[in-house]
């Protein structure tokens, strides 16, 4: 076959399995006889195998981080829907002849809503409280809950904290937060740092020593917050009484 350089495009098609059986067979036969084309094929294979050395799996935790970021974005999206003045739409739809019908529907709606609120309070006493947790605090708590427990905890009381993974930056409720995960004394704690203060969630306890510290429990995670020039929020799956001592051993901002 003449004009090897011109045929490289054809050879690329042959290597990709693009050629019809007859053309592929002609190339097979040609390669047996042509050292130059055979060298070209070897170089192609060698280059491909070399490039494959660069493959590496995504780091552990990246899927959780991405899922978390999307979840935060989804929460922000649903919270960011344009606020509509109550009644604005219904007033446009109501015509004089329909007024009685709308009043009946409204009355039934009030009754159903009242029943739902009563049931929610009876069945989920913490429900309304949880809903009013500041977005930034809720985001840190949710992230801390997603952090997997160490496979082999080493509850060595003297060990220094070890950072796990990379810092994660998220924005929740308009507040930018950098979260780092630390392993210490057999638990993994999340230290969240923000330039804005973390607001106290309902049910939180202000630190008895005064100042701007508070602690709270959300789900299986305890939270301890120090609000100062920067604000640090520590979250870990430990009893709330143990968290302050744990936080004292973690590198805060």
């Amino acid at each position, binding site marked *: 076959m003449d004009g090897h350089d011109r045929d*490289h*495009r054809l*050879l*690329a*098609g042959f*290597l*990709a399995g*693009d050629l019809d059986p007859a053309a592929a067979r002609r190339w097979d036969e040609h390669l047996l006889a042509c050292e130059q084309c055979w060298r*070209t094929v*070897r*170089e*192609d*294979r*060698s*280059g*491909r*195998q*070399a*490039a*494959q*050395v*660069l*493959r*590496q*799996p*995504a*780091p552990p935790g*990246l*899927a959780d*981080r*991405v*899922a978390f*970021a*999307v*979840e935060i*974005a*989804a*929460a922000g999206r*649903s919270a960011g829907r344009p606020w509509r003045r109550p009644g604005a739409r219904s007033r446009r739809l109501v015509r004089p002849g329909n007024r009685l019908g709308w009043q009946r529907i409204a009355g039934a709606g009030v009754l159903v809503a009242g029943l739902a609120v009563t049931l929610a309070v009876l069945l989920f006493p913490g429900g309304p409280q949880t809903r009013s947790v500041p977005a930034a605090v809720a985001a840190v708590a949710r992230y801390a809950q997603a952090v997997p427990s160490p*496979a*082999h905890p080493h509850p060595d009381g003297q060990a220094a904290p070890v950072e796990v993974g*990379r810092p994660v*930056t998220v924005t929740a409720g308009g507040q930018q937060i950098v979260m780092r995960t630390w392993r210490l004394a057999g638990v993994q704690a999340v230290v969240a740092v923000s330039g804005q203060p973390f607001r106290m969630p309902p049910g939180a306890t202000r630190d008895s020593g005064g100042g701007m510290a508070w602690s709270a429990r959300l789900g299986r995670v305890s939270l301890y917050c120090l609000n100062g020039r920067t604000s640090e929020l520590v979250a870990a799956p430990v009893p709330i009484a143990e968290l302050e001592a744990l936080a004292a051993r973690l590198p805060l901002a």
Partner: protein
Amino acid sequence: MSGDHRAFLDATLPYLDVVYQVARHAAGDGQEPEDLVQETYLRAYAAFGSYRGENTRAWLATICMNVARSEARRRRRRPWEVPARSLLDALPVARADDGEGVPDVADVVIAGLDAQAVSRCLALLPKPQRVCIVLMDVAGYTARETAQVLGCPRGTVLARVHRGRRRLARLLAEAGVSHGRP
């Protein structure tokens, strides 16, 4: 909270490894691949409502490269530089804290040196060839998907990747690194 983000994650998270390969090589200096992956997914989520679902992994690669380009423009740096990563970062092995799955030290060092050499040589290729090699040989995209991501004919992709592989092999041979078996 609505379930659309759950549907989005179900549709896209299976391709995280693939997107990560693209991000590692598309990330410019000072840009972390993990940040690029996160931003890719956030942009994809924002556009998920209008996505028609032709080829999800090609769609994600396109977004990842666009994000990398935007970020590179913002930083006034060149994208598609192969980042100079630490030896351990360049290893194609899983690391475990408890000692399980940790390969022999000699294997680790050799694999790391090879990966570094390949990275250096890959960085010397013309950008179109480098991009095609990263998408096809590193990330595992097909020629058709690569053509879709780059917006060029499939034949062009095949020709670029072929020339790039040969050049890469020659550069590695000059550097004294050999790959593949005859």
